């Protein structure tokens, strides 16, 4: 099939589909006798991606395939099409989701253990209803708790191709560092000195403590710490 026509079909199909399409799915649009090689489809997609330069939409690949999407740059205007739309999620939900994403398969009990609080059923329900997580199995322990994993829809929603593209999980520093401290922990006086030294250092580094920025969420403070 002629390249231009193929491009047109792929463009129209991607815009018509309402969900991402994979190369095999695009290939299935063609009858057996006009079969199109995946390489050809990939070329058509590359050409369509180039055509998006400087436009309001872009053609990206996410976990479940290729899709056209509104560029972030113009999204603020486009978003006015929908005056009220729930796009904020609670920290509890995001933390739960993060645990499932990085630690899958994981049980609800294991999530609660790491977070130190119980996970509301409504959170699990929301995540399942959005089809971001699903039960992938059951742990072979008493009660056979369900193991959760993330879905392709989850990756699609966050504009990701695979779990590898998730932000890297912070490293845990070696806990051995504690040991030298122990020798000093004779009494509260020593401890107090440490506290003050640490606090003093920070002030002099000119970081922005939370109380000065007026940021209300503890979350934000962590951001400061990490950007330091």
């Amino acid at each position, binding site marked *: 099939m002629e390249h231009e026509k193929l491009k047109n079909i792929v463009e129209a199909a991607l815009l018509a589909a309402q969900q991402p399409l994979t190369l095999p799915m695009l290939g299935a649009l063609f009858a057996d006798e006009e079969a199109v090689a995946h390489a050809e489809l990939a070329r058509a997609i590359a050409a369509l991606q180039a055509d998006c330069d400087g436009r309001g939409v872009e053609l990206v690949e996410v976990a479940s395939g290729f899709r056209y999407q509104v560029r972030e740059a113009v999204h603020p205007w486009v978003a006015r099409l929908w005056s009220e739309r729930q796009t904020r999620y609670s920290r509890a939900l995001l933390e739960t989701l993060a645990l499932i994403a990085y630690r899958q398969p994981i049980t609800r009990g294991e999530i609660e253990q790491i*977070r130190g609080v119980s996970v509301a059923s409504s959170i699990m329900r929301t995540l399942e209803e959005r089809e971001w997580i699903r039960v992938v199995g059951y742990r072979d322990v008493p009660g056979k708790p369900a193991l959760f994993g993330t879905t392709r829809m989850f990756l699609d929603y966050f504009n990701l191709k695979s779990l590898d593209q998730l932000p890297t999980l912070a490293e845990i520093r070696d806990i051995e560092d*504690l040991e030298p401290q122990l020798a000093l922990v004779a009494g509260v006086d020593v401890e107090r000195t440490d506290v003050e030294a640490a606090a003093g250092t920070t002030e002099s580094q000119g970081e922005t403590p939370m109380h000065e920025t007026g940021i209300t969420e503890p979350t934000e403070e962590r951001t400061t710490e990490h950007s330091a």
Partner: protein
Amino acid sequence: MSTESAQAVAMSPDEGNLAAARVPQQQEMPLAVVRGEPVLQMPQDLYIPPDALEVILEAFEGPLDLLLYLIRRQNLDILDIPVAEITRQYMEYIEVMRELRLELAAEYLVMAAILAEIKSRLLLPRPPVEEGLEEDPRAELVRRLQEYERFKKAAEDFDALPRMERDIDAASAFVPDRQVIKLPPPVDLREMLLALRDVLNRAELYGHHAVAREPLSVRQRMGEVLRALGDGAFHRFESLFDADEGRLGVVVTFLSLLELAKDRLVEIVQEQPLAAIYLKARATEATE
């Protein structure tokens, strides 16, 4: 842990000294003055409206989060938690929640107990031998805090990812006709051949069928020739051959012509010896 014991820990003599010593730096933390007027003296850095005090609980994702907050607020290293001080501040928060009669989640009280236990172990004289082998009482707590902090950070990173609806939207075009089209079912070659075998077996049972031995390509060519003769007119014998097919193709075509003649499907005419040979289909739909 009972109210009494929690307060006992919070108000231990050491803690009192420490709190006093730290007063200058506690200015930004009016929460220290818990026992006074709780409502008016809520921690400013939490910006809790006096009439929405539940926010304290809501602002933290549990005791680990609250502890992290207390540690990070003072820019302390997580590996170097001053347990006594942190415990005191933690208990103050718990107290505020309690005095405001907020329903205190059990996890917060469990953490208070853990902190009290760690602190008491730190205060006890350490065994003189095997110093290096004894684990710091704080180690387990630090491990949990670190682990939780990783995922707390991960959740923040998630929140920063471009996200459908909030930062991006799928683009789609209208399709005038979205009728579902029915595709024919797939056919497995093997299934078709098994079906043929069955029908052959049945046919033999009735003694009607002779197994054909001619190459199937001849049969295929018979159809092609018939179609070529489909107009009902006479065609020159040579015109039915395609030299490009090579010798084998010529043979196949020739055999197919013989089969068609034997089957009385074509008529072969030659006016006189050595003259041109013509063929026509014996029957066509158009001419009849």
